[in-house]
């Protein structure tokens, strides 16, 4: 019982990072354009533009070293295509 409780509490505190990836400024985002058109057709004319993107939630071992550098590596090597996409990392505790 005690062990189980310990595991649960350690899971609760494992740090997380959220990575946001979107197309770089100046790169046409046809999905965003289409969504914007739909908003206008629905009468929501106050929205000037829409850009789409995606996000990733990463759960991280709490004793990880060098995590900022390693997060940056996974973003540039895999999660984003640096030719056309930019990314932003938010760390949560």
């Amino acid at each position, binding site marked *: 019982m005690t062990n189980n409780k310990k595991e649960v509490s350690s899971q609760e505190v494992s740090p997380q990072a959220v990575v946001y990836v979107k*197309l770089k400024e100046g*790169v046409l985002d*046809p999905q965003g354009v289409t969504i914007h058109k739909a908003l206008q057709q629905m009468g929501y004319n106050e929205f000037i533009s829409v850009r789409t993107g995606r996000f990733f939630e990463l759960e991280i071992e709490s004793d990880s070293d060098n995590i900022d550098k390693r997060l940056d590596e996974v973003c540039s090597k*895999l999660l984003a*295509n640096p*030719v*056309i996409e930019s990314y932003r990392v938010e760390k949560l505790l």
Partner: protein
Amino acid sequence: MKVGIVTFPGSNCDYDAYAAIQHIMGEEVEFLWHRSTDLLGCDLVILPGGFSYGDYLRSGAIAKFSPIMEKIIPFAKSGGLVMGICNGFQILTECGLLPGALMRNSHLRFSCKHVFLRVEQISSPYTQLCHKNEVLKIPIAHGEGNYYHFDDEIQKLEDAGQIVFRYCDANGEVNSESNPNGSINNIAGVCNEEGNVLGMMPHPERVVEDILGSRDGLRIFESLRTAIAAAATVSNK
């Protein structure tokens, strides 16, 4: 020539390429499984079309880390012929062997139809039997074939003659009506600086006999056969 065709999980044009090389060209061909690390002495490696790894994350983004790519990247960097068709083109841009990126088609639809290509570069091993501005009829089948790179980078590719094919109409006119996906400058195929790595969205392996509506894909495979035979003659001397 000996041709290797890579099969990733989700490749679906590997057998078409195999049939084109073996049954139509009468050349030796081997499948290269994505987990293998042996190129079996092939003169040319083809990364075929399909949806490697389900197109998860981005087209080609996961395939670039497969074991066979660890052999293909140094093979390409040492001058080996590597051709990426459709999803293969996406993999080659993802792993950095080719410049630019392939984005979602500007109209957001999957597009499957015959298109016309104008041959822009004929000093390439992939097109050396073609005439300058020759028009080839070859089909496309993709949702993410919208070639993109930043303006100054595109200019560098144009200046270096790395644009090999452009979408055009039946008369060879390059215009926005003949652009099926929004690609910048109607680009349908590019090569690396050295010319040994080519990526193209259209499928030449699908048009290799009259019953398929065109034989124009053979212009590319026959160019490659000539280039490989010439290289073998030089190295035997």
